[in-house]
C-alpha cells in the first residue's frame, strides 16, 4: 500500500548511521573504564591477600598491609553517616511533606544543589576553618567526618526525597481521614513505604564518602599512623588518602602496592554502588502501586 520512496530510504540510512555512531560513542565512554579496571586487577590483584588487608604498613609504607587505612575509612564513614543521615532524612521529610511552594523552598533547593556543586577542596577549607579551628576539634576523625557529612548530605536528601514523594498521596489522605496527625501519618504510613528507597540513598552516600580524599586531607586523615584510632578525637589513616600518599609521596614503592590499594578502594565503591542499584531494581519490581 505504501511504496518506499527514495527519500524514505535515504532517511532510513541516515538513521541507521547515526544509531551506529551513538552506540559507538556510548561504548567508547564505557570501554576505557573497563580497560582501566582490568588493568588494576591485572597489576594489583597479586598483592591482595588477607595479610595485605589485615596488617600494618611497614618500611615507610613500602611494604606490609593497609589495615589502619581500611579501619580508619570505616571510622570516618561511620561517624559521617551518624551526622548526615538524620539531618538528610529530616530535610527530605520537610521538603516532601511540609514545604510549601514558596521562596524558602526554592532557596533550600538551590542550597542543596550548591552544596553538591561546591568543590571538594572548598569543603576542606570550610572543615579547617569551622571544625578544626573554630570548634577546636583539632585535626581529628570528628572534624573530618563532619566535613564529609556536610559534603555528602545532598546525596541522602535527594534520594530520600525522591522515595518519599513516590509514596502515593492517597495513602496520606486515608491516614489523615482516620484522625491521625501529620507526624503520625509520616511515621506510620509514609516512612515505612519509603524506607527501602532511603536505604539505597544511604548506601550511595557510603560509597561517595569512602572515595573522598580532598576534604579529609587537612581535617583528620594522617599520611602515616601505624596504629588504630581510639576515639573520634584521634587522627587516622584513610584508604583514599593512602592511595594518594603511596602513589605520589613515598619513594621506592613496589609497583604492585598502589595498584593493590586502588583496587581495594575501587572494589569497595563499586560493590556498594552495585548493591544500591540491585536493591533499587528489586524494589521497582516489587512495587505494588
Amino acid at each position, binding site marked *: 500500500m505504501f511504496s518506499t520512496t527514495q527519500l524514505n530510504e535515504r532517511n532510513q540510512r541516515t538513521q541507521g548511521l547515526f544509531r551506529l555512531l551513538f552506540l559507538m560513542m556510548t561504548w567508547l565512554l*564505557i570501554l576505557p573504564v573497563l580497560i582501566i579496571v582490568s588493568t588494576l586487577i591485572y597489576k594489583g590483584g597479586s598483592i591482595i591477600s588477607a595479610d595485605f588487608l589485615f596488617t600494618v604498613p611497614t618500611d615507610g609504607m613500602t611494604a606490609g598491609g593497609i589495615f589502619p587505612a581500611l579501619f580508619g575509612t570505616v571510622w570516618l564513614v561511620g561517624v559521617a553517616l551518624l551526622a548526615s543521615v538524620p539531618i538528610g532524612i529530616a530535610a527530605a521529610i520537610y521538603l516532601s511533606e511540609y514545604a510549601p511552594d514558596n521562596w524558602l523552598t526554592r532557596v533550600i533547593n538551590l542550597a542543596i544543589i550548591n552544596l553538591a556543586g561546591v568543590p571538594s577542596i572548598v569543603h576542606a577549607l570550610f572543615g579547617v576553618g569551622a571544625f578544626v579551628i573554630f570548634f577546636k576539634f583539632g585535626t581529628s576523625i570528628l572534624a573530618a567526618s563532619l566535613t564529609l557529612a556536610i559534603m555528602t548530605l545532598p546525596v541522602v536528601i535527594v534520594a530520600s526525597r525522591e522515595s518519599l514523594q513516590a509514596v502515593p498521596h492517597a495513602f496520606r489522605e486515608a491516614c489523615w481521614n482516620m484522625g491521625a496527625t501529620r*507526624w503520625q501519618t509520616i511515621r506510620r504510613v509514609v516512612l515505612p513505604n519509603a524506607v527501602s528507597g532511603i536505604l539505597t540513598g544511604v548506601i550511595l552516600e557510603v560509597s561517595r564518602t569512602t572515595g573522598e580524599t580532598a576534604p579529609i586531607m587537612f581535617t583528620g586523615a594522617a599520611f602515616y599512623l601505624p596504629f588504630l584510632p581510639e576515639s573520634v578525637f584521634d587522627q587516622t589513616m584513610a584508604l583514599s588518602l593512602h592511595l594518594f600518599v603511596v602513589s605520589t609521596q613515598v619513594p621506592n614503592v613496589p609497583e604492585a602496592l598502589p595498584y593493590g590499594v586502588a583496587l581495594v578502594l575501587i572494589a569497595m565503591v563499586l560493590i556498594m554502588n552495585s548493591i544500591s542499584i540491585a536493591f533499587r531494581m528489586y524494589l521497582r519490581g516489587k512495587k505494588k502501586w
Partner: protein
Amino acid sequence: MDKPFPAIQHPNANNRGADWYVDKLMQALVFIGGISAIIFIVGIFVFITKEGLGFITDRFDFMEFFTTEYWFPSDEDDPEFGILALIAGTASVTGLAMIVAIPFALGAAIYIGEFATGKKREYLKVLVELLAAIPSVVWGFIGLSIMNPLIIKTFDVPVGLNVLNAGVILGLMAAPIMASIAEDALKAVPDSYREAAEAMGATRWQVITRVVLPAARNGLLGAVLLGVGRGFGETMAVLMATGHSVNIPGSIFDSVRALTATIAAELGETAVGSEHYGALFTIGIFLFIITFLINLTADLIVKGIKKG
C-alpha cells in the same frame, strides 16, 4: 428546622494531647533539617571568608591577584600572589575535558534515551552510573600510572603529566554525570511529542533532531554547565595528573597547575593565619563564587524549561 446544627466539637479540641505536641515538635525538627542546607552553604562562605579576611584586607591587590602569573607565596623576601597561571591551568584542563566529554556524553545520552530499549538500556544505564562512582583519587592514580607512560610513548614527549592527561581524565570523569543528567533531560520530553512526529511519518532520527533535541535544549545545556562546574572544582585527579607546575600552557603537552590542586598541595605547609594561608582561602572564596554562579545558571536554565 429553626435552629442550625450545633457545631461539631472534636473531643480533644480544647485539650491538646501528647500527639499534638509530638506533631508540632517533629514539624519543628524536620524544618530545622530542611533549612540546614542553607545554614551549611552560608556557613561555608562565612568560614572560608573569615580565614581569608586577613589576607584580603592586608595584602590582597585585585590586579596582582587576577592578572599576574607569578605565584611565589612562600618567598621570604618578596612573596607574590598572582593566580593567572593557575586560572589558565584550570581553564585549559576543564576546556579540554569538555571537548572530550560533551560529544560522548550527549551521544551516549541520545543512544540510551532514544535508541536503546528494554534490558540493553538498563545495562547501559547501570554501567554509566558505575562509571560516575569511581573516586577522583583513583582517576588521579590512573593518570599517573597508566596515562602518563602511554602519553610519553605515543607522542614521544618527555613528560606525560600535562593538560592532555588531566583533560582526558577529567573528561572521562565528567562524561558519565553529564550523560545521566542529559538523559533525564531527554526523558522529560513528553512521549506525545515523539508519537505526534512519528505519526507524521518521521524516522527516529528525524524525531530526535527535529523534536526531541530542540525540546530538551535547556536541560542539555544545564547538563553541560554542571559538567563544567564539576571539572572546575575537581581536585585530586588534577593534582595528580597535571604535572603541577605553575605555567600558562602553550600546548596540550605543557604541565600546568590548577586552582584546586594548589590549595590541596600547599595548605598543609602553611602556618594558620599567615599570608600564604589567607591567600589559599582567598582562592577558595573565588572557587566558591565561580561554582555558585555556574550552578545557579544551570539551575535557572533547567527550571526555565519546566515553566515554558
